[in-house]
């Protein structure tokens, strides 16, 4: 990753957020934002994992968009699932902690994976240890590492592998 690329990506992200936060493109607002963004991007030119590990190939960008939709669908499913459990008088639970393995190598990819798992049906990332993730599962279907990996990690990994590797 070149420093110039890191700088540009971070600068663009910061400026975008500044403009969104202010909701205005007035000159004085813009100048302050640009100066601050330049300064911060310069200080962190050696890389901030969020931007420096992101791939910018067209394929990765398309995958990112598809990932967002997949994620939203899972999030809604997760919530209906929670609603069903807390509203049912019997409280149908079979909780446990299972262990799964990820193929993802980058830190950002793993972070997004852990976050996605937390927000999707019945699963909560409790601990990370290298390629191993420990998941609290409200309804443990299987305690087997391979089977649990396929059930919990499978869907997201396909997308994240293209996005971050």
């Amino acid at each position: 990753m070149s420093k110039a690329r890191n700088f540009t990506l971070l600068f663009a992200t910061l400026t975008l957020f500044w403009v969104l936060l202010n909701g205005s493109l007035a000159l004085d607002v813009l100048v302050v934002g640009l100066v601050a963004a330049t300064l911060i991007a310069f200080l962190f030119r050696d890389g901030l994992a969020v931007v420096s590990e992101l791939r910018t190939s067209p394929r990765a960008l398309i995958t990112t968009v598809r990932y967002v939709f997949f994620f939203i669908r899972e999030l809604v499913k997760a919530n209906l699932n929670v609603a069903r459990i807390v509203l049912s008088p019997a409280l149908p639970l079979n909780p446990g902690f299972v262990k799964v393995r990820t193929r993802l190598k980058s830190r950002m990819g793993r972070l997004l994976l852990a976050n996605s798992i937390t927000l999707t049906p019945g699963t909560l990332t409790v601990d990370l240890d290298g390629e191993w993730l420990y998941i609290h599962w409200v309804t443990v279907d299987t305690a087997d590492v391979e089977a649990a990996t396929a059930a919990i990690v499978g869907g997201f990994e396909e997308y994240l592998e293209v996005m971050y590797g």
Partner: protein
Amino acid sequence: MDIVGGLLLVGGAAFLLFGGLGLVRMPDVFNRIQAGTKATTLGTLLGLAGIACLQPDWALKLFLIGLFILFTNPISSQVLARAAHRSGARKSALTAVDRLEEDHGA
């Protein structure tokens, strides 16, 4: 548009309510975190989307708040769950298996 916004708002508030209900009803801290994070994340997002429909001028800032919640909420839940597990929080008697304890000790 107003009606859509209102409905989104009520839907979001309902999920927040489910989150609260889960917090009260779930048997141990891990299940409470599960209910707490998921339901409140979608609940907040829907609620903010509803307000954005009612006040389109605020859409950008509401979007930003939503984005922030979407990223930070799962992180705080994960950190909290790990802290609870490491500090030996009581687990529900229903807990079927604990690979984390097998590998790392309580």
